[in-house]
């Protein structure tokens, strides 16, 4: 199988990730605060430090381990005081953001405003600025669109948020592992990420990086293995936010995934993907029946959306899978709003996303298959 769906979840995983899960499950369990083995505490503490270091987040930040971006985003949204305020999002957002905020809107708690991306999916900061009012309490913004692969200018949006004393939540699901990220420079209040995409970890693990002064309330309540006689949630970090048994295999896999990226070098990973993406883009550009959706000036090289003539994306992905054993994704990719902007509503796009493990030969098979579909079926 030729796997080109790494934006959904990465495959294959590095052997170090695979082995660490086997090792963990083959040995007596470590469970923070729930057994006499203190090793788990130091391991998890070390991983907190290494993850914060990977994202270049200094002592102003903490990390909360979660089940992934969706839980992280819910934690930031439902744990912040947004009542009777307005929240601004971009039309590039994923349903993890849209549906969480729509729930608050439908409960009558907030007003939701949407800054529209343009025809190629990029976002002009002015479209965010013009939605600001004195009621705006939070901006939620995608770092890299999972549809177009465009990088949104989170640094400028952060400046805008700080100038207006507004909370900023960045959805880093697609940016984590795909571009170098310096949270000290970007300076968000919250940064949500998941392990299983370009950080090569397990599904069901991720984190929320939070500014220590963000006043984030507790989102999830329960046992933490700490101050167990207390009937209320401890205020101490991380117990205030990490109720329930931690996903230790997931956290270990995240650490190993980050180690793998650091060993190879994130810039080498970007160069590899850029080479593959250029191979695709240069060939697709020659074909009038293939339309691509991205902004050349703000592109991450991590994911490419396209359509072939008037064929539905489902049809194309079905043929790629059934005829050539190529795994891509078709549809709106859980980001429905941006398709109004790029003109792919309601069917969406075909999306390809290689990884460091993808070869030029595999990409060549994709190109030939797509060209054939374009010549035979359009």
């Amino acid at each position, binding site marked *: 199988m030729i796997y080109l769906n790494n934006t959904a979840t990465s495959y294959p995983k590095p052997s170090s990730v695979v082995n660490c899960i086997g090792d963990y499950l083959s040995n007596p369990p470590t469970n923070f605060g729930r057994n006499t083995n203190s090793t788990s505490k130091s391991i998890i503490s070390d991983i907190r430090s290494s993850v914060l270091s990977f994202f270049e987040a200094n002592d102003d930040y903490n990390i909360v381990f979660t089940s992934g971006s969706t839980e992280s985003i819910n934690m930031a949204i439902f744990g912040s005081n947004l009542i009777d305020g307005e929240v601004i999002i971009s039309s590039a957002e994923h349903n993890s953001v849209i549906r969480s905020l729509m729930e608050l809107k439908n409960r009558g708690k907030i007003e939701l405003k949407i800054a529209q991306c343009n025809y190629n999916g990029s976002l002009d900061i002015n479209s965010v600025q013009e939605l600001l009012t004195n009621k705006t309490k939070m901006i939620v913004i995608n770092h890299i669109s999972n549809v177009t692969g465009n990088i949104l200018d989170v640094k400028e949006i952060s400046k805008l948020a700080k100038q207006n004393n507004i909370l900023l939540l960045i959805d880093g699901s697609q940016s984590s592992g795909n571009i170098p990220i310096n949270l000290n420079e970007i300076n968000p209040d919250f940064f949500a990420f998941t392990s299983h995409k370009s950080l090569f970890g397990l599904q069901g693990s991720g984190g929320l990086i939070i500014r220590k002064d963000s006043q984030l309330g507790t989102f999830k309540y329960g046992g933490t293995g700490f101050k167990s006689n207390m009937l209320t949630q401890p205020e101490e970090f991380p117990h205030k936010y990490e109720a329930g048994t931690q996903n230790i295999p997931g956290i270990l896999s995240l650490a190993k995934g980050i180690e793998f990226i650091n060993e190879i070098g994130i810039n080498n990973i970007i160069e590899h993907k850029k080479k593959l993406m250029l191979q695709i883009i240069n060939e697709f550009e020659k074909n009038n029946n293939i339309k691509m959706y991205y902004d050349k000036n703000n592109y991450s090289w991590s994911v490419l959306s396209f359509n072939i003539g008037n064929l*539905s*994306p*489902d*049809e194309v992905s*079905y*043929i790629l899978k*059934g*005829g*050539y054993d190529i795994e891509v994704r*078709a*549809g*709106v990719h859980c980001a429905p709003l941006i398709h109004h902007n790029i003109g792919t509503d*309601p*069917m*969406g796009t075909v999306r390809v996303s290689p990884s460091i493990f993808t070869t030029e030969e595999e990409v060549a098979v994709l190109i030939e298959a797509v060209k*054939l*579909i374009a010549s*035979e*079926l359009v």
Partner: protein
Amino acid sequence: MKLLYLEIIETCIEAKSAYDAFFSDTLSKEFIDKFSKIGKVVYNEKIGSTYFRIIVRGKYTIKGFINSDNFRIMMADNLDNEYLYEIKQNIENITKS
């Protein structure tokens, strides 16, 4: 050749609803040809191991590949049960003949 089971496709948005039909054996051209009694059968031999579409106008489209063990049924409206029954009957008739 037997129809083993049908699996609903939840992500398909090009049709009202869609199902993958799985068979006990691989699909031959002779087998697919027999669907011409209920609709228009179109082949494209250049794509994969021959891509086929069976278009039953206004009702459903079936698509798949020769030598595969499954095909996809895409409904044009909400009469899933009626059309699935029709397809099952047709498969039974073909395999009996």
